[in-house]
């Protein structure tokens, strides 16, 4: 092997190493799902200021962003979590495979909510009532005391359809998408210090 080939080879290996390090050394399927998560975070980062009223509302951007999230959710997400792919660079908790139905349910919920947001994009933003109302049952605020919404407590309530969400203000639909992210991260993502 001549010197040039050696240098080229070393440079090639370094490039691979640099690419892998971008996600803390992740490779293969773990890298793929991290890229998916990053793509969704990028959408959320771009849309959140519109929902907060601190950036001009752009219905087309909301539609496109929501569609992108829906593409990464549901089965597109769960197929990227084959059993035995926690540990190492991955932040996936082993609970994903212990409670697979819950995990898959949240991934599906994200897909439905994102499709709802896509359809609600033209509604614009219009104030968000508190969660109790938002989840379609007013138990918390409306006279039934302390039970909260079943959705928060472990998914006993039937899931809302995308058609239902399509009737809501976009910021409300966006909050539902966000809360899916939060619910799943709380249970199934290890937090780095």
């Amino acid at each position, binding site marked *: 092997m001549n010197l040039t080939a050696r240098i080229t080879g070393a440079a090639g290996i370094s490039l691979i190493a640099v690419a892998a390090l971008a996600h803390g050394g992740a490779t293969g399927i773990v890298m793929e799902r991290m890229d998916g998560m990053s793509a969704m975070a990028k959408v959320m980062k771009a849309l959140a200021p519109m929902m907060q009223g601190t950036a001009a509302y752009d219905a087309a951007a909301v539609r496109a962003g929501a569609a992108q999230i829906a593409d990464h959710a549901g089965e597109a997400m769960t197929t990227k979590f084959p059993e035995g792919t926690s540990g190492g660079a991955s932040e996936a908790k082993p609970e994903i495979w212990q409670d697979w139905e819950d995990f898959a349910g949240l991934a599906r919920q994200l897909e439905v909510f994102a499709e709802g947001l896509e359809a609600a994009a033209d509604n614009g933003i219009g104030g968000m009532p508190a969660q109790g109302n938002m989840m379609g049952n007013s138990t918390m605020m409306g006279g039934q005391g302390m039970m909260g919404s079943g959705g928060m407590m472990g998914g006993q309530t039937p899931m809302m359809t995308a058609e239902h969400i399509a009737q809501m203000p976009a910021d409300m639909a966006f909050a539902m998408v966000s809360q899916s992210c939060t619910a799943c991260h*709380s249970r199934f993502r290890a937090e780095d210090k």
Partner: protein
Amino acid sequence: MVFLLRLAALGAVAGGAFVIGLVYWPIRDDPGTIELAGDPNRGAYLARASGCIACHTDMAGGGAPLAGGAPLETPFGTFVPPNLTTDPEHGIGVWTIGDFAVAVRQGVSPEGEPYFPSFTYPFYGNFTDQDIADLWAAFQTVPAVAEPAPDHDVAFPFNQRWGLKLWRAAFLEAPDTDPVAGRSDAWNRGRQLVEGASHCAACHTPRNPVGARLSGAAFAGNEDLPGGDAAPSILPGDLVERGWTVTNLAFALRTGVMPDGDAFGGSMGEVVQGGTAFLSPEDLTAMATYVLDQD
């Protein structure tokens, strides 16, 4: 030698007497009679703001509301948030409103035993009688769950409840919830929630080796939360540096979405899901206003 033995014996007797004194030292203040009518909706709202439901419900395990929370692993042992449903045996069904007031505001059980500070009662010390009546009314609406939450698993010497009386004498202070003249209504409302009910400092302030918050480092973050979690600094300068504003912080408390587009996980995700997501936009803005000190 005899002298030394006598001294040691005297020491042991004095120490024993000291401990016995501690065991019988009454710490329960009579709350008086609370006869106010409670509003269960306002109480449920305050329970959300106070994290009662987030902590005493095992959300991940699919547990019933307030039937007992997920265990907290700490250097002192494992604490299990108990069953607060109306079950007479395993919950708080046989309590009086006076028992409830003393438990919440003073951190003392109906039997006169101090609770471990894993229960965030130090933040609830300024709850008014009306707050207590509202909470009590809300707790009466919780269906009984006839299953005990597991006991705490705390090793000696931390399992000696009399030791907690010393802890209380050394570290227990009333929360800083009183309004400050010259600040906006939003800032003062935020102060009431952040320093009181919502007990942000419970996680975001570092603690000393016996688990008391370091008052000089309030909100500076805590690397050693139960279960190996960490809470970042929420000092105004640090928050601003990380991209937070009053608007996006209030939004994050409702949705979980951070300025970089990521969503909270871990215990902050649970705080949002079980608590702050239910608060009014005005209250969330007030909390963000106070934490960022921008009014």
